[in-house]
């Protein structure tokens, strides 16, 4: 902007401040910037740091923070792809040198990373746009959107980028237009652009993540506001621990198959919503079962008590092979490409509803319901109906007609299993194809002899990806065999689920602001569903965390896997056992796919404002700098989809470390810190700007693990913060050391890097910790009195405790930051 820029004066308390230079270009958004500063900046802060806002940001507007992250956690690429085909000059094999355009192998990896994040963003922008357009058509653009009684500050992933949460559908459209506008810029850089900096490409990948969380939050909000989904912010705090009740039926055994069954699958709930409405209008609720696979199922249990949540989409083949759906309704994103082929194997009728999955069919949206029904009855198996209302009505009418024409069971008989097993040549092609090393020829050999024990175990562990079946040269229908080998497991797969509750409320944040100082960590478990071979591991992980007094939030299809665990004594699930609050020793479910935006970044942004008055309007870098210093961890467990990649990127950019499960080994890059490199671990003194060395924490921002044990052990370690109360650090030491001892048989070798004083040591471990510090690390210890006499700094100096806490980390209460511009200074440029 030129020097002739007009002043824009904001008044904060008694201070008047010119905010015309607080943003890159204030033209057209003067009022927004002024209002953002006046409502969320304190007078104290205005006078101590340079105001900088990033409304409607491009990636580069937040690059100062991204650079900090990428410098401390340099990308570790997997280099699994080496040939670039992104432009007309290609293909270029980059292994041997640069591509025709000058692209190096490493920059190519960063481009792949950005491409993955862009794909994830595009997928959800489409979902959000479809929903919004429908809402505007149905309700008009002036329709007000409600936030819920207690969502005082609105949507935090939205506020953090554009200052304000929309109040009408028109404003939602404007907000979404911003998000959609970011995609072409990011895609250009990812594909045909000439961006040559890895840091800038990764910064853009982060940006795709932030924009995705923004769009997901808008989607969630429309679901509540326009379709009355369960929504905790519309409840009083006293109601929330039991809200929504954990009474939704879930699992394959929850469906009454004596009734006609409609199964919905995909990311779009509208046709399910319309089908349920039609059923209610015609009193058919008792006569028809409606069930959902994956995201739509999580949505359905939020608006219809009788809905059944079947399974995550990663295991949808189970539903198809069992022939569960008399009618199957497909929508966008989470459907398998061969869903129609699979469904036809068991004579299901299929209605597909999305413009992204048209299967070469003509849209029947303009045809009458009777005409469509008549064709389906005559022998048509698949139709495309893009009008959700019509699709819902056709599904309900059709299912009543086709039910009796289908077989009652599609399971193989025992003799059929043996017959197929006899064809096995023990080549182990199936074992080599299986990502979880589950099936092999010898298991089929036992089955041929009548021993189904091993086959029965696979039923639970397999993701039903079908790779083994495809690899088998004898065309043995292995997935059908797994199902038939353990029919009772299907009946027993029946449990109670707490439906999603939407956003974390401001009241809960006020509560946790008090307990967070002693709470070890807030964990958010997200993702698309179980890893093959994992069985009930996700539930075990959630159980461990909640029992250790962590606050646990789950969202995405993984939430259902958490519900699968039942305490042996009580027979109750985790959801039935623990209150649904955002608080220590509580377990809450935010909801399906788009609710992944609600459980980690949003509540922490809000916490930053409520507890520390850290401004949140268009202030992503400032908030992330705050969140980074608090104990929160995201665990992404499940397939490494592009949506998962972008969701993870968004959380990292919010300052939250992420652990990805074994499926995350397909991610394009990780962000790992190096605890041995002391130069990387510092913070700035908030008053002086002096750099001070700190503990290496959080050590990583994105790390893959192989097992649940590793994830459990990493959470407390990544939750160490450089400033925390003694009791908090005691809890973390307890969890960290116990987890290692129990799961790996020994203490970790780096715990001493987190010790500052003896009062932070848990009582039960203090004597051993002090002894080891003396014997192995060269500290001077008074063992009798249990005191540190001299602590050994990592630079080799022996320091008395008082000096050590100043020279290694910062005292709690001291304001610290990672960004130069956030260091306090007396401002002379006030009006």
């Amino acid at each position, binding site marked *: 902007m030129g020097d002739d820029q007009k002043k824009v004066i904001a008044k904060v308390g008694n201070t008047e401040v010119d905010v015309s230079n607080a943003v890159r270009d204030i033209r057209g958004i003067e009022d927004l910037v002024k209002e953002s500063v006046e409502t969320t900046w304190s007078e104290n802060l205005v006078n101590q740091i340079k105001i900088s806002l990033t409304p409607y940001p491009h990636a580069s507007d937040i690059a100062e923070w991204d650079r900090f992250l990428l410098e401390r956690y340099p990308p570790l690429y997997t280099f699994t792809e080496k040939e670039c085909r992104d432009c007309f000059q290609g293909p270029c094999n980059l292994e041997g040198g640069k591509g025709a355009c000058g692209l190096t192998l490493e920059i190519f990896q960063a481009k792949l990373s950005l491409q993955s994040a862009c794909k994830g963003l595009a997928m959800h922008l489409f979902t959000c746009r479809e929903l919004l357009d429908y809402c505007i058509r149905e309700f008009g653009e002036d329709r007000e959107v409600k936030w819920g009684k207690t969502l005082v500050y609105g949507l935090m992933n939205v506020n953090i980028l554009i200052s304000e949460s929309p109040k009408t559908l028109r404003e939602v459209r404007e907000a979404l237009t911003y998000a959609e506008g970011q995609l072409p810029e990011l895609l250009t850089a990812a594909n045909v652009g000439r961006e040559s900096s890895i840091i800038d490409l990764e910064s853009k990948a982060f940006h795709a993540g932030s924009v995705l969380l923004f769009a997901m939050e808008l989607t969630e909000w429309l679901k509540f506001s326009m379709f009355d989904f369960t929504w905790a912010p519309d409840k009083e705090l006293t109601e929330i621990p039991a809200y929504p009740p954990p009474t939704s039926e879930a699992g394959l055994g929850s469906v009454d198959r004596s009734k006609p069954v409609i199964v919905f699958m995909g990311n779009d709930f509208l046709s399910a919503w319309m089908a349920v409405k039609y059923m209610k209008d015609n009193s058919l609720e008792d006569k028809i079962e409606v069930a959902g696979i994956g995201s739509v199922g999580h949505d359905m249990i939020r608006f219809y008590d009788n809905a059944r949540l079947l399974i995550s989409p990663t295991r949808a083949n189970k539903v198809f092979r069992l022939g569960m759906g008399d009618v199957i309704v497909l929508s966008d994103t989470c459907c398998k490409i061969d869903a129609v082929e699979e469904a036809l194997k068991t004579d299901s009728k299929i209605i597909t509803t999305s413009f992204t999955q048209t299967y070469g069919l003509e849209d029947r949206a303009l045809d009458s319901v009777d005409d469509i029904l008549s064709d389906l009855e005559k022998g048509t198996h698949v139709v495309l109906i893009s009008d959700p209302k019509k699709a819902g009505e056709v599904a309900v009418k059709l299912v009543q007609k086709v039910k009796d024409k289908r077989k009652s069971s599609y399971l193989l008989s025992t003799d059929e299993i043996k017959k197929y097993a006899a064809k096995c040549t*023990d080549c182990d092609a199936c074992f080599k194809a299986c990502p*979880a090393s589950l099936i092999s*020829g010898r298991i089929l050999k036992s089955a041929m002899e009548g021993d189904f024990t091993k086959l029965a175990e696979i039923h639970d562990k397999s993701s039903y990806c079908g790779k083994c079946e495809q690899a088998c040269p004898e065309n043995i229908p292995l997935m059908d065999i797994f199902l038939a080998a353990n029919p009772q497991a299907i009946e027993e797969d029946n449990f109670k689920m707490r439906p999603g509750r939407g956003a974390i409320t401001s009241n809960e944040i006020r509560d946790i602001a008090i307990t967070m100082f002693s709470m070890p960590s807030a964990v958010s478990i997200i993702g698309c569903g179980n890893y093959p*071979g994992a069985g009930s591991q996700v539930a075990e992980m959630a159980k461990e965390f909640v029992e250790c007094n962590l606050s646990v939030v789950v969202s995405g299809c993984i939430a259902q896997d958490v519900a699968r665990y039942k305490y042996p004594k009580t027979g109750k699930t985790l959801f039935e056992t623990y209150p649904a609050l955002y608080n220590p020793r509580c377990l809450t479910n935010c909801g399906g796919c788009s609710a992944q935006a609600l459980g980690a970044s949003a509540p922490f942004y809000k916490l930053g404002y409520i507890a520390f008055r850290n401004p949140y309007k268009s202030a992503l870098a400032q908030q992330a700098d705050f969140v980074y210093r608090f104990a929160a961890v995201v665990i992404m467990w499940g397939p490494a989809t592009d949506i998962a990649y972008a969701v993870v990127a968004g959380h990292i950019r919010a300052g939250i470390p992420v652990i990805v499960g074994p499926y995350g080994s397909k991610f394009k890059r990780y962000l790992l810190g190096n605890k041995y490199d002391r130069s990387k671990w510092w913070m700035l003194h908030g008053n002086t700007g002096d750099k001070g060395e700190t503990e290496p924490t959080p050590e990583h921002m994105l*790390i893959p*693990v192989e097992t649940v044990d590793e994830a459990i052990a990493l959470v407390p370690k990544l939750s160490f913060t450089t400033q925390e109360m003694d009791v908090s650090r005691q809890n973390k030491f307890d969890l960290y050391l116990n987890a290692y001892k129990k799961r790996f048989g020994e203490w970790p070798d780096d715990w001493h890097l987190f010790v500052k004083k003896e009062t932070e040591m848990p009582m039960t471990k203090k004597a051993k910790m002090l002894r080891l510090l003396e014997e192995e690390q060269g500290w001077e210890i008074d063992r009798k009195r249990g005191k540190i006499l001299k602590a050994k700094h990592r630079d080799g100096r022996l320091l008395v405790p008082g000096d050590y806490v100043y020279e290694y980390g910062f005292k709690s209460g001291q304001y610290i930051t990672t960004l130069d511009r956030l260091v306090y200074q007396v401002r002379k440029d006030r009006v």
Partner: protein
Amino acid sequence: MILAPDETAKLIKEEKRRLLVAGSICNDLEVGGKNLLDYVVDIAKLTDTPIVATGSTMFHLKDNKEIKAKKMMAADLVNFLRVEKWEEPITPERPELLVFLGYYPDIVKMLVSTIRDGKTMVLDNRYMNEATYSAPDMSFNEWAEYLDNVIDNLKK
């Protein structure tokens, strides 16, 4: 490069700065009537090679006094390899050859692909193109035979 068992044994013996990396399915898989982890321990003992135990493998090695083993996250190991100064105490010097055993294919593929500086060898039963050296695709029986052969050659 696909290696025969004798070539595998020869390479392991030749490379002085070597490290065994034992993954999470070492605990779960039985190969030729033997736990996969037993093969790792045999190789470690015969060649005096330290073991980085990833996943939850360490639990089964902790009481074995005949070998040097340490629990690490696999990602940490490959991360430390990318900086010039080697500081991880499991070996005094940066390892030049990492021998992987007991991994899901996707995981070991990711791990070896990240290593740009140093040689990798995968002894699981799926051929790993991304590794410097790999065992071929094998059935369970062939795998057991292969590993037994490697052990026999290491004894020579």
